């Protein structure tokens, strides 16, 4: 890791640890608000925005350090989503001044161009994770008859909003739009894939961070909790369970780092698929072990374990669940055929251009 990235990692760790302490002391909107303004002050939302427009000018490797820690500290704010939204605005060449911009996933979309004015109207549902009551912008990717495009919408144009917090109680909403004027629209080849893959990268890093965190919780717990006159961590059955948990955490961390590295070099569709799938598949064994070794205390609101396990369960479905990525990856490999299986796999791993 270069020094700049190390500094970034350290200051992010410190910030998130403080925020975690603040939020667990006072879990209300004011704590979250304070938290958000700290994140903003540090400039984290600009991680992937180029320096020429006042951003941090970071690469995906820098983003990994931020996203991983979002998982490791179970940060209850859509920091990563906003980092990606700002990044994609740059890709789409859309000038964006200030305010919150959420990353949206849309369905049943109908884009209509006014023949006279040339302006676009947006009809459809947008699912987005955001926070706070500021005027909000939504960035979505749409695949239409004329190609794929990024569309910037104003949440205030929605005809209906329905809040649907995720499993971890994080704010998510469904917004309905009917012939809403779009703020910006840019055709970008593969816009939908870009957005979806960026989201999958984010979740993969968060899952890696959360797995490492629950491993730490488990190790602490089994060293302290005594039954039958000794710490439960001295029982071989418990030790082997934690070894398995460690293996899953290690595998996901490696997969995530590798996928971010690939993304920092170039097209990384294969690595994103492989890494998000690997991360998703770690979640059931890891969370089962973590809850089992914690006993009843881990099943309470008071204990922090659920902050991680609930997020993990929720993240598994986000930006492609197991079946989705397994199908994508399986099709890709089967299309390439057995003769190219090995050489493609190696080429993907050894790619050093850049």
């Amino acid at each position, binding site marked *: 890791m270069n020094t700049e990235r190390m500094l970034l990692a350290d200051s992010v760790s410190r910030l998130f640890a403080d925020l975690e302490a603040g939020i667990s002391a006072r879990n209300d909107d004011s704590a979250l608000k304070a938290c958000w303004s700290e994140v903003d002050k540090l400039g984290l939302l600009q991680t992937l925005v180029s320096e020429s427009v006042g951003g941090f000018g970071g690469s995906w490797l820098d983003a990994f350090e931020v996203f991983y820690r979002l998982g490791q500290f179970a940060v209850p704010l859509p920091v990563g989503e906003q980092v990606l939204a700002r990044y994609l605005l740059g890709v789409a060449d859309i000038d964006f001044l200030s305010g919150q911009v959420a990353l949206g996933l849309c369905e049943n979309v109908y884009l209509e161009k006014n023949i006279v004015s040339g302006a676009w109207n947006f009809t459809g549902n947008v699912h987005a994770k955001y926070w706070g009551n500021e005027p909000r912008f939504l960035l979505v990717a749409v695949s239409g008859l004329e190609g794929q495009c990024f569309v910037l919408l104003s949440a205030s144009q929605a005809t209906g909003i329905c809040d649907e917090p995720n499993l971890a109680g994080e704010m998510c909403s469904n917004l309905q739009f009917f012939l809403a004027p779009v703020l910006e629209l840019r055709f970008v080849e593969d816009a939908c894939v870009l957005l979806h893959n960026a989201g999958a990268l984010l979740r993969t890093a968060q899952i890696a961070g959360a797995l490492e965190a629950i491993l730490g919780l488990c190790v602490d717990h089994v060293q302290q909790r005594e039954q039958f006159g000794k710490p439960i961590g001295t029982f071989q059955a418990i030790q082997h369970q934690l070894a398995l948990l460690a293996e899953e955490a290690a595998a996901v961390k490696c997969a995530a780092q590798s996928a971010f590295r690939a993304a920092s070099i170039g097209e990384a569709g294969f690595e994103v698929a492989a890494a998000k799938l690997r991360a998703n598949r770690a979640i059931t064994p890891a969370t089962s072990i973590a809850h089992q070794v914690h006993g009843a205390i881990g099943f309470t609101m008071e204990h922090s374990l659920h902050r991680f396990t609930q997020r993990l369960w929720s993240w598994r479905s986000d930006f492609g669940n197991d079946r989705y990525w397994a199908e994508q990856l*399986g099709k890709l490999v089967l299309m390439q055929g057995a003769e190219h299986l090995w050489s493609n796999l190696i080429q993907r791993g050894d790619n050093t251009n850049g």
Partner: protein
Amino acid sequence: MYEFKFDPVEMHPCTAQLRTEVREFLRVELAQMLPQDRAKTWFGFSADFSRKFGARGWIGMTWPKKYGGQERSALERYVIVEELLAAGAPVAAHWMADRQTGELLLRYGSDNAKNRFLPAIARGELYFCVGLSEPVAGSDLAAIRTSAVRVSGGWQVNGSKIWTSGAPHSHMMSTLLRTSGSISSRHAGLSQLIIDLSSPGVTVRPITDQTGDRHFAEVFFTDVFVPDDMLLGNEGEGWQQVNAELSLERSGPERYLSCYRLIEEFVRAAGPQASLPVVTLVGEIISEMWTLRQMSTSVTGQLSSGGTPALEAIIVKDLGSTFEQSLPPRIQAVLGAEMPPSQTVPLHAVLNYLLNASPSFSLRGGTREILRGMIARGLELR
């Protein structure tokens, strides 16, 4: 709290050239080899193959030139080994020496041992096996009983080893045995000797495994004389030496590629029109295999730049062997009507061999339970 380190490794551009060369060599040499024979990977034996491979400079390639090596990097060796395994080359003859005994000799061997053995190993002509396990000492390796007592000019060895891979065709055995103390002194008093298996008093009795193969053996020693300069390292430090030897070799590509042949035959038989359960299983397998390769190359990269990713290496072995062991039943479970046996002859032959061979994957080189205990120690639970 332990923090895992898996920084992706940068493969030097020169490895690409090497990879092309070894692929071409294997394509020609193995052209006639059947998939079910390739499935044996590092259990397949061919003296002819090892000699030709050595002639290319690909055995002991990281060793000093004066001992027949090429002074290439650990990552270059990694490239060679993974290509051998993926192709299913019959590497058993030179496998142990190239992987571990060579390093051991370089570090602890006498001048005579180094000069006598290393160049011959590198030529692919001299084979080593590794004698650790005994009938009473499996996982509890410190319980070994084979012993050596001092005699004029060397040692006299009595006892026996079992499950020694490659013993039936090997010339030499690097042997862990007791040179002082009693069985109750455990780790203290163990040493490593190189024993010439053609010495008087050595009997090798091959054991047939459940695949029908006779790759391992029981080896008996009755008053076997071993000269002084066949001692490796220091007397009494065998335990530390053996552990260093084993820890170096936990994370190589052989830890997850044992069923590579099955994956390739499965992909071939499935084809681009495969049903959804087949497609998703392929996706899952590739995701796991790619992850394991990233882990394995990362550990090799760290080792070669002086790091000590000990816990990471053990994790690669346990995850890797669990992965490869899971493949035959997972693939068997999804074979369907669209893949009738008549169209999938090589797939079924490979599947049957690997179903049969797979129980050994989590035994050889330290069992799953022993590895998990080591991981727990790394987490400071023991």
